[in-house]
């Protein structure tokens, strides 16, 4: 123990706010990190899925007998192996989902509802045998008419996916079933009176294509069920506690008998908040009594895992001559895929959230069609409705001849503004992000011919939720941290930094891991931009337990009252009358005497995190349009977003940049393309065109920090908002470059060239 200890006066944040090297970094640059498909177990079988070739068909029969007889086939599962579920809605990822639907999405029951819908699964001793076995499963289908497009699906004569689906949210209850699962509406003020006050009204209809999350790692799992019915599941997921809940429910197992370990996760963006393979692997392993590994091909990822909705959106906004928004209306029709549950609800709530508007009405429809069930995708629902709104805002600015940033500033939501979805905002940073982009030299750099500059803002709520984290002080004073949310993009670094600062130990003495479902209490998934916000709250809670405990132990060691001991900057310190009796001790000092003072030192944060702060962002983009080919090139890109407090600025910037890049893909090239037979034409990275390195410029990231008063460090979630503004920012830039307003995504070269040629013809 050192003779003298110097204690700084205030709690110093030595880690938080710095650009540390992430704890899992070396494993990830050396190939050591184990992702979903990287685990193999002794005796492991290969699992494969038989999928529907049809967009819509009744399953007349499934005969697996020939497959079961094939040597090397150890198990086959079909709908018979999954008990039916009653209709019950539960929150999961983005909107309520229903186990009745989930069991049907995992394996088709009465009907197949999209091409790629799972029908059966086999486990065999080799890939070749598994593939042969799939060919030996005889499925008799009665092919039914299908419907792909959302507007078509809403027609009264459209092929019906579910004959028990009646539109919710309309009174009286409809007499006939339809593909419209739900109608929702939010309203405030008097929309008619609002439009009557408007000097300029713009109304437009928009269409967006479904886009896939596009994570590079396909879904993968290894499940092993033992003879006593306990199951171990390894999988790539955003929430292993959710996987556990779903597997236990679908297979009628006790939650405590299912242990799920999340692998390193190779991207999720919302798409790994649901289960596809895991229940199948558990069911196969249960039958075969051997571990079963299942990995999706890229084609399966595109055809069978959730993209986000495509949509048709109508927006009408009214503004006074002096630039005040007085009324706003939107109607959103979102594809849900084969089962209800599109993100239209958040789409409705986010549409006008960035603005202070007295009279608002938004109507939304959740519509099923013969496509894969949508899954969450980064700010689910918001990019679609905000694309439409931000496009109309730009057109209003054009009509009024007001700078688009100025028009937004005039109407921007501020602290105290009543959000379009109801409650008042606390401190928020929209205005700050608008000022931030205005101040860049990007905003004022002159542009050339066929070039244009666009701006758009975006909003996402952010959430908290149930979260656990534990901290253990080891014998040598190092700290083990365990969290329950999978780390997709640097979470372990952020949690370790907060733990280090809370306990006053160096960052590199904290070793964070992600615990399995047996190691911590229920922890909601990594999603909703919650994991850093909620995880750091849980870590702070755990650390504060440790600090209180250390003070109690020190008080006993020093024989002083506990109120004369204080924890400060990594030390327990005697204060007041006790100051003369003892010398401060570091956490490491206390760790050495842990055994003699009551045993191991640890804290366990178990919270339901409340107080998430919304994050606003504003994007600025320059484009150049090739008038002869319709190609749009992104020349320059700037993101400004409110992070509240950036725990690790590099990973905050990375979220801004990555979200912008995904938005650029959504804006320009990404789309699901269906053939007339309802089959997906571009189920691969070759023709589902995500941005490559040469498509993009550097993306400047400006971190605005308006602290969230409900978090000790001021943290807001930041992961989702960055995908909201790009589509409108780019559409607005293209409009400035060409004079043409594009209302349909993607703004791909054929579409842009067609519009340019039609205008040329119209002029001629």
């Amino acid at each position, binding site marked *: 123990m050192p003779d003298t200890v110097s204690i700084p006066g205030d709690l110093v944040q030595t880690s938080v706010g710095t650009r540390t090297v992430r704890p899992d970094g070396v494993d990830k640059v050396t190939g050591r990190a184990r992702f979903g498909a990287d685990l193999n177990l002794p005796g492991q079988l290969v699992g494969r899925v038989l999928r529907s070739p049809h967009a819509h068909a009744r399953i007349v029969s499934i005969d697996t007998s020939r497959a079961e007889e094939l040597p090397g086939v150890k198990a086959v599962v079909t709908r018979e192996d999954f008990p039916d579920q009653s209709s019950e*809605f*539960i*929150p*999961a*990822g*983005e*909107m*309520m989902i229903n186990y009745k639907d989930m069991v049907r999405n995992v394996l088709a029951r009465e009907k197949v509802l999209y091409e790629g819908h799972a029908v059966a699964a086999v486990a065999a001793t080799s890939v070749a045998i598994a593939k042969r076995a799939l060919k030996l499963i005889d499925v008799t289908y009665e092919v039914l008419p299908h419907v792909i497009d959302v507007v078509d699906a809403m027609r009264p004569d459209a092929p019906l996916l579910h004959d028990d689906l009646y539109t*919710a*949210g309309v*009174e009286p209850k409809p007499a006939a079933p339809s593909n419209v699962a739900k*109608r*929702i*509406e*939010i309203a405030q003020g008097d929309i008619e009176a609002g439009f009557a006050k408007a000097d300029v009204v713009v109304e437009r209809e928009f269409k967006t294509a479904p886009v896939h*999350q596009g994570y590079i790692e396909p879904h993968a799992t290894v499940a092993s069920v033992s003879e006593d019915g306990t199951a171990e599941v390894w999988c790539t997921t955003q929430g292993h506690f959710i996987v556990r809940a779903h597997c236990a429910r679908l297979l009628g197992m006790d939650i405590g008998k299912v242990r799920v370990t999340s692998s390193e996760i190779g991207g*999720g*963006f*919302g*798409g790994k*908040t649901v289960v596809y393979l895991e229940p199948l692997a558990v069911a196969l392993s249960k039958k075969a009594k051997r571990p079963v590994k299942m990995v999706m091909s890229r084609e399966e990822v595109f055809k069978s895992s959730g993209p986000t909705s495509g949509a048709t959106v109508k927006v009408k906004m009214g503004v006074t001559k002096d630039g005040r928004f007085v009324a706003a209306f939107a109607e959103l029709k979102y594809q849900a895929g084969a089962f209800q549950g599109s993100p239209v*609800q*958040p789409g*409705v*709530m986010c549409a006008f959230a960035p603005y202070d508007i007295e009279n608002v009405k938004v109507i939304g429809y959740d519509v099923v069609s013969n496509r894969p069930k949508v899954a*969450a*995708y*980064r*700010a*689910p629902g918001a990019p679609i409705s905000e694309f439409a709104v931000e496009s109309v805002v730009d057109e209003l600015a054009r009509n009024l001849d007001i700078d688009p940033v100025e028009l937004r500033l005039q109407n921007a939501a501020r602290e105290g503004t009543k959000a379009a*979805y*109801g*409650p*008042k*905002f*606390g401190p928020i940073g929209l205005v700050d992000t608008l000022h931030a982009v205005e101040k860049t030299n990007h905003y004022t750099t002159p542009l050339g011919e066929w070039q244009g500059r666009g701006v758009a803002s975006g909003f*996402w*709520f*952010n*959430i*908290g*939720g*149930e979260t656990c984290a534990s901290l253990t002080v080891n014998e040598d004073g190092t700290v083990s941290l365990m969290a329950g949310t999978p780390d997709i993009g640097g979470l372990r670094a952020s949690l370790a930094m907060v733990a280090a600062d809370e306990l006053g130990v160096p960052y590199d003495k904290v070793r964070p891991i992600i615990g399995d479902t047996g190691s911590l209490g229920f922890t909601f998934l990594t*999603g*909703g*931009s*919650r994991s850093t916000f909620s995880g750091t709250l849980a870590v702070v809670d755990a650390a504060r337990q440790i600090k209180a405990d250390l003070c109690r132990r020190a008080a006993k060691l020093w024989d002083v009252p506990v109120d004369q001991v204080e924890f400060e900057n990594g030390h327990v310190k005697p204060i007041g009358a006790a100051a003369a009796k003892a010398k401060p001790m570091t956490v490491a000092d206390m760790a050495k005497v842990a055994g003699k003072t009551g045993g191991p030192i640890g804290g366990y944060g178990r919270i*339901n995190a*409340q*107080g*998430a702060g919304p994050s606003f962002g504003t994007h600025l983009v320059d484009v150049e349009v090739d008038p002869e080919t319709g190609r749009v090139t992104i020349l320059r890109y700037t993101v400004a977003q409110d992070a509240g407090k950036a725990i690790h600025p590099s990973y905050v910037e990375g979220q801004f940049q990555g979200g912008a890049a995904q938005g650029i893909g959504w804006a320009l090239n990404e789309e699901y393309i269906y053939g007339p037979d309802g089959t997906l034409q571009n189920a691969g990275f070759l023709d589902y065109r995500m941005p490559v390195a040469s498509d993009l410029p550097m993306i400047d990231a400006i971190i605005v920090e308006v602290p969230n008063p*409900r978090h000790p460090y001021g943290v807001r*979630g930041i*992961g*989702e908002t960055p995908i909201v503004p790009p589509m409108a920012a780019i559409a607005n830039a293209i409009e400035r470059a060409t004079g043409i307003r594009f209302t349909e995504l993607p703004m791909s070269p054929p579409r842009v060239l067609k519009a340019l040629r039609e205008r040329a013809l119209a002029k001629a």
Partner: protein
Amino acid sequence: MARVVLIGNLAQLTGGESEIEVAATSVKQLFQMLGQRHPALAPHLEEGVAVAIDGQIYQDALLEPIGPDSEVFVLPQIAGG
């Protein structure tokens, strides 16, 4: 009395009444009182809604206090990707 506003489709279940004065001191009490007054609402409150108390959104927070002059919005659950 706290002023309670029902957002979106919830108002359909109250016969169109979207603003209610309720003397609740916690979210739990609020849900009980709302459920008694409008039985059609009860299952939805159990299913999972969010509440915003004076601008701050809470989810699954039955024990959260509500002040006598609080403004409370009952909203659909929010999650994310």
